[in-house]
């Protein structure tokens, strides 16, 4: 009897630890620990230029059953995102890749989030908030706590192949230019006007 109890006492903390491991979102998910079990294909051909707000693209993904480390039971959602290629990350600290996925800033634009299926696809019109840069597509598989458990991407591990460009909107409108010119002219003319008035007053 006593031996059983002591056994339970020993096992309890271990169980708690295991439970915490599952529950703890504070445990950092490292990108290098994720298995690449999804195959992702993006429709733009390498080097193709897409215009934000205008062009469309298709992304398809499928799980590669033959690859190791595929604990499919944990897969609940698939999140597909635009990710910056290294050329667009150079000298731009706000797009830095970090192994800790909580700090990672590589993939900032979500294309879609869908419930997990062994294969899926999405047709996507490039949104107007996407900036001018070089991208690839990555899909993360999320578990029930929205933590990443697997991934796949349309490029190779060095992120050098199958990259495409997006040209973002400028945000400029001719009305802005006209308004700027009018206000500027008004400022300068007002100054000239007051100078003339000053001269006249001094003459008096």
């Amino acid at each position, binding site marked *: 009897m006593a031996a059983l109890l002591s056994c339970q006492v020993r096992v309890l903390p271990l169980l708690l630890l295991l439970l915490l491991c599952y529950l703890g979102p504070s445990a950092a998910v490292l990108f290098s620990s994720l298995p690449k079990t999804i195959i992702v294909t993006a429709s733009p051909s390498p080097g193709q230029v897409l215009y934000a707000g205008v062009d469309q693209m298709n992304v398809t993904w499928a799980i590669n059953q033959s690859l190791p480390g595929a604990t499919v039971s944990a897969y609940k959602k698939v999140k597909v995102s635009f990710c910056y290629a290294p050329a667009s990350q150079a000298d731009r600290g706000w797009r830095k890749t970090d192994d800790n996925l909580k700090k990672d800033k590589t993939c900032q634009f979500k294309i879609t989030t869908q419930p997990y299926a062994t294969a899926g696809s999405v047709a996507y019109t490039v949104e107007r908030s996407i900036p001018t840069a070089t991208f690839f597509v990555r899909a993360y598989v999320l578990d029930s706590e929205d933590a990443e458990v697997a991934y796949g991407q349309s490029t190779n591990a060095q992120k050098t192949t199958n990259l495409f460009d997006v040209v973002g909107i400028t945000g400029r409108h001719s009305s802005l230019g006209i308004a700027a010119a009018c206000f500027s002219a008004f400022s300068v003319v*007002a100054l000239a006007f007051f100078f003339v008035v000053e001269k006249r007053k001094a003459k008096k």
Partner: protein
Amino acid sequence: MEDSGKPSLHVESSAAEGSHFKLPVDSEQKATEFWLFSFAKPHMRAFHLSWFSFFCCFVSTFAAPPLLPLIRDNLNLTTTDIGNAGIASVSGAVFARLAMGTACDLIGPRLASASLTLLTAPAVYFTSVINSASSYLLVRFFTGFSLASFVSTQFWMSSMFSPPVVGVANGIAGGWGNLGGGATQLIMPLVYDLIHHIGSTNFTAWRIAFFIPGFMQTISAIAVIALGQDLPNGNYRKLEKAGDKHKDSFRKVFYHAVTNYRGWILALTYGYCFGVELTIDNIVAEYFYDKFNVNLRTAGIIAASFGLANIISRPGGGLLSDWMSRRYGMRGRLWGLWVVQIVGGVLCIVLGRMNNLSASIIVMVLFSFFVQAACGLTFGVVPFVSRRSLGMISGMTGGGGNVGAVITQLIFFKGSKYSKETGITLMGVMILCCTLPITLIYFPQWGGLFCGPRPKATAEDYYAAEWSEDEKERGYHSASVKFAENSVREGGRRRDSSPAVPADDTPSHA
């Protein structure tokens, strides 16, 4: 003659006007009291016009940093582009401030300030149509010129307010202007959110937002011209035509400014209080965002709180300067400046070593108080360095502030040689080193940090030395003589009890 603060209200009969002022004035018609909530013509009105237009210039100059997350994606900027533009934004004003000092001496602060503000407003409006890293740099460079209106603000306050209150007037005007650097970190994201909410896409909304600071600048400049006045008795042009004010020569003004070593020392030390303030305005949001992983809005609020401390910190410096002067004269002003700036340097070193978010914020706020108070204390001393070349000395000191910002950003915050926290610590060390020269400032009539005044030296001699015998014969130096009389209190309490009567009996005293 001057005693411990009793206002002397008298009007000097002159050809210009026998006018009546609401505030008590001295023999130069400068106000001897400072009534913050009054708009009385011309002194307090000048105060409110000048601090507000300076505030608008600061809002415009630092309008881009809080919107950078959008601008950098819209224009495809790199960290180097952003750093270069940050340096450009404060470097334009280096020479603009010198030019401004001269302009104030020659055409008066009202026209000088309004011209600058109206001529830089187009740069703000055209920020809405930039589309590349180089155009971004250019608009920030030209917008930054408007920071030179600081000089006209200080000059105007020194022309309107008497020595006993000039520290407070300069401190509040400068402080509430610098406030713009903090306020803009709140204003611009708010305006952007509003416009974005109404329906514009993000890359258009930030562009529209820039019309707000531009418009503020235009309106405040027009108010300055229409409602302001250069001197208590009128405007420069009118007074010059009436013969009441002698039109000085640029060469002489320039010569007396650059040969006064005190101006150069103050330019250096101002580079390490105000220059540090400008540097922090440019980097602090990013610092908190990257080091502590707070979101952009939180980083903006923290960044704003640094600039917002200016509501009381810089005026506090001015008040402290005037208070020290009442007890210890000019030596008190110098000691106050030295000690406060040293404490600021120490806090800067500590800030770079903080690894905890709340401790970091507390240290930053304390640091902001001391560094901004040091700015106020500096301009408690500047009005006394020269009377003839007041504008140019103010310009040199102000320009020195911007040079400090440029040098500091170039050495410590460009590229990745130093991490931001190391940069901040090293900046603190530099503050300590560059504050030492204050020990070398010496006024023969009042003393310096470690030495007392020379026995027979007088303020009249000091200020009259800026004029040649020929000019003195023609009476051009009369303003300087009056100023010297009014500065008697800079000798400290001991001097107060013995009335320091000037050798020549000027008719202006009862």
